[in-house]
């Protein structure tokens, strides 16, 4: 009993941080309607600032804490004002959500540059010795944390429900349009909520850092845990955030103690999936029913990116020819292996494009299917001597089964909940690849994976692997292009922007979504298998959730809904660190920054821009700007 209580206390202190992160989510969500995935990174930034002020510069604890929070809020406001707030005003919710995932990566990258990849632990505020209540021993920092989180909740409650400012914040939450008509500066309020959330994150980060050592990418962990907590509690509800966070913390500690620390996440994630099935709006769901026949979301006025058949064929042939001769040229060291990786990843990004770019289904779990395909093929080929091709096929089959199961949960979900469910799926796969040590080799990975080979021919050089991936990619682009230019693709695009109108025309929306998910899962699975065969090795972090975010960055940078575009995103993000030595440390930050910048300034992506430019060159003189003459004529 005592042991159990001790575990619950550990869980509550862990859960306190989740609750604080969830509180930040809820606050921003209520004011802007968007879940800000970068929330968890503020914890890391807060702890990092605290480390410099307190440990490196020797400032007294209270002063260091105050300075850290101020510094993080200032940085958060600067980033929020230039990225988040403009995005909320101009982008559809799903894009803004992904943009905040880019911010999370960006903040992680900043922490990596400043802090390096070492874990850091701060000294506890009041010494190492725990206090005892009878036989119960509680670390003093746990008390600081509990008190700090409670104080934040109280302060937030007072601010929102008892002040003029809070009323303005609430007005934005209820109806932004009406609020702005009443003279509330909605953008200021959005920024304010973002800054408050940064303060909450920084404070909870520096409170928890003495208990859990943090490193540059711990923000991912806080964000996902806080996201799960907020989903359990109900999006936008303050009470729900606290209850969800504490529940999650306790559940994880119990699972870690009674099952295995390697599976600490698994249980919580399964719980969440069940929750999304049973009660998608959370325990404390709030909010009036929407009029579903009236569209409330921002409509994306994305120009159709189309090339005439002839030009497309010419461009494709030229591209394949150039890419095909690359390995024969004298390339600098390391470029060919990077090209191979870029090409293999492109196959997965291609699948993501079908799902996200063409069908509009946000997926934060693409790497999960890479992991399933990679591990299945690698394990079968390494430990059971299956021919590689059979392993690849088995991986794809398993991925399709998982896609079917996932679709049971995701079928009815949209927007944030869809993103959350796919993220949960990816994290679940992560936790299994780490936890199932006997099957996957656990955190240290699976070694001795053979080369890919078909009918006696081994693809055992970088060039042969590159050509294989290129050939496969070319075939997939060709077939998918055919699909997208016919009724199949039009069904996907109809679902992307307007499910109700699509259904009214007889499009079977659930089936279309399932088809897109299956295409996407199969391609990711194949890509994961090739990835393992290429490296002769596979470890969990090679195909973990950050990889999902990276592939989204590749897709958005290259151009959503263009099929080929992902290749350019993949080439840029894979080759840049190889070509420009010393850039490797900046890779994470650049990835995040590029994702955010392309959403804001290059929404059609590199390839999309190129195609629009080509189209303009060939346009008839009467129609020079690509503007349809409709406006003038009617």
């Amino acid at each position, binding site marked *: 009993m005592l042991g159990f209580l001790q575990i619950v206390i550990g869980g509550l202190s862990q859960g306190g941080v989740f609750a604080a992160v969830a509180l930040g989510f809820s606050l921003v969500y209520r004011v802007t309607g968007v879940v800000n995935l970068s929330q968890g990174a503020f914890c890391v930034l807060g702890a990092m600032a605290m480390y410099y002020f307190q440990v490196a510069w020797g400032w007294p604890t209270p002063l260091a804490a105050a300075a850290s929070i101020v510094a993080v809020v200032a940085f958060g406001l600067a980033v929020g004002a230039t990225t988040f707030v403009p995005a909320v005003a101009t982008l559809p919710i799903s894009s803004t959500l992904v943009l905040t995932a880019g911010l999370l990566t960006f903040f992680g990258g900043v922490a990596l540059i400043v802090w390096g990849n070492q874990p850091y632990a701060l000294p506890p505020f009041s010494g190492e010795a725990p206090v005892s209540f009878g036989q119960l021993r509680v670390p003093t920092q746990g008390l600081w944390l509990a008190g700090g989180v409670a104080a934040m909740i109280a302060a937030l409650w007072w601010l929102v429900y008892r002040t003029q400012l809070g009323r303005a914040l609430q007005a934005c939450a209820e109806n932004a349009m009406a609020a702005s008509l009443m003279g509330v500066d909605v953008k200021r309020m959005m920024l304010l909520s973002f800054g408050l959330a940064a303060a909450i994150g920084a404070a909870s980060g520096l409170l928890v850092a003495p208990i859990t050592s943090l490193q540059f990418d711990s923000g991912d962990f806080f964000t996902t845990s806080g996201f799960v907590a907020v989903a359990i509690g109900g999006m936008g509800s303050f009470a729900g955030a606290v209850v969800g966070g504490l529940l999650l913390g306790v559940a994880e500690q119990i699972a870690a103690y009674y099952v295995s620390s390697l599976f600490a996440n698994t249980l919580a994630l399964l719980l969440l999936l069940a929750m999304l099935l049973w009660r998608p709006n959370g325990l404390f769901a709030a909010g009036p029913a929407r009029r*579903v*026949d*009236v*569209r409330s979301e921002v*409509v*994306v*006025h*994305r*120009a*159709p990116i*189309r090339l005439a058949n002839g030009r497309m064929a010419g461009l494709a042939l030229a591209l394949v020819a150039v890419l095909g001769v690359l390995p024969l040229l004298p390339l600098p060291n390391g470029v060919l292996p990077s090209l191979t990786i870029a090409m293999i990843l492109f196959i997965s990004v291609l699948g993501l494009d079908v799902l996200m770019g063409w069908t509009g289904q946000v997926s934060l779990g693409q790497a999960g299917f890479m992991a399933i395909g990679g591990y299945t093929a690698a394990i079968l080929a390494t430990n059971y001597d299956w021919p590689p091709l059979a392993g690849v096929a088995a991986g794809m089959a398993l991925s399709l089964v998982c896609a079917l199961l996932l679709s049971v949960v995701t079928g009815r979900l949209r927007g944030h909940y869809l993103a959350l469910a796919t993220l949960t799926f990816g994290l679940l796969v992560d936790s299994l690849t780490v936890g199932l040590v006997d099957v996957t080799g656990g955190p240290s990975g699976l070694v001795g994976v053979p080369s890919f080979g078909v009918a006696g021919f081994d693809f055992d050089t970088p060039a042969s692997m590159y050509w294989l991936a290129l050939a496969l990619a070319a075939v997939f682009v060709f*077939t*998918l292009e*055919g*699909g997208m230019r*016919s*009724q*199949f693709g*039009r*069904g996907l*695009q*109809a679902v*992307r*922007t*307007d499910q*109700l*109108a*699509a*259904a*009214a*025309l*007889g*499009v*079977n*929306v659930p089936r279309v979504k399932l*088809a897109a998910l299956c295409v996407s899962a199969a391609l990711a699975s194949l890509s994961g298998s090739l990835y393992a065969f290429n490296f002769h090795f596979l470890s969990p972090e090679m195909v973990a959730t950050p990889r999902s975010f990276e592939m989204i960055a590749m897709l958005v940078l290259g151009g959503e*809904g263009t099929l080929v575009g992902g290749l350019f995103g993949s080439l840029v993000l894979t080759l840049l660190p190889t070509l420009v030595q010393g850039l490797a440390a900046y890779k994470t930050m650049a990835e995040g920054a590029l994702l955010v910048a392309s959403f804001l300034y290059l929404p059609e992506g590199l390839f999309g821009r190129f195609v629009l430019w080509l189209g303009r060159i060939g346009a008839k003189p009467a129609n020079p700007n690509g*503007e*349809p*003459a*409709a*406006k003038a*004529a*009617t």
Partner: protein
Amino acid sequence: MTPALEIVSLSRRFGGLLAIDDVSFSIARGGLSALIGPNGAGKTTLFNAITNIFPPTSGEVRFMGQSLAGIAGDKLARLGLVRTFQTARVFPGMTVLENALAGACLRARSNAVAQMLRLPSARAEERKLREQASALLDLIGLSAFRDAAATDLPMGAQKNLEVVRALMADPAMLLLDEPAAGLNDSETADLAALLTAIRDCGVTIMVVEHNMSLVMGIADQVVVLDAGRLVAAGAPADIQRDARVIEAYVGGSV
């Protein structure tokens, strides 16, 4: 012959508001009927109840003799009942021609794999649909903009495109919610011509419309709603003389 659409004591409640109150009428096959009534009368709600977007609180809807209880979404279109929405809902990110073609999704006989591999059967089907869509766009005067982004069209043209898109689904009956909103006089005349042409091809049409001269010119039956209740239903000439209709339309504002 059973009517195309039978509405039997249909009611729909939103909380305390009875948006449709015990409405019954039927629409003969092959007719062009107009649903009129002041703003907030419940016309859109009636369409939403028929198509089970907000299912009826009580009462029944029968389409070609078959009850529509529990039939929603794409299944309705498969039965031949296709609707448009009051706000223009062309698909962004697609060209005008692609939007029109998207209406034919349920007619595709070739499967996705055949389309991806560009098999002859799939290409023949694609060619046929494209010809049909082009012909319809021609009819409504949109063929010059077939490769423009649909969302770049002016609002009226977008609504016309929606009618074309719905028509591409090859429906037995069309429910059109204010297709003429935002059209100027000559565009309205074009639309009227298109609607009568569609009707002459054997498609039953019910259209929500404010423009009385349009309604009286082309409709062969008019259904009048006010505050959720059926005021009158009958031939345009009778409706124009009906005191209750004049009351509903003019009485309030005089």
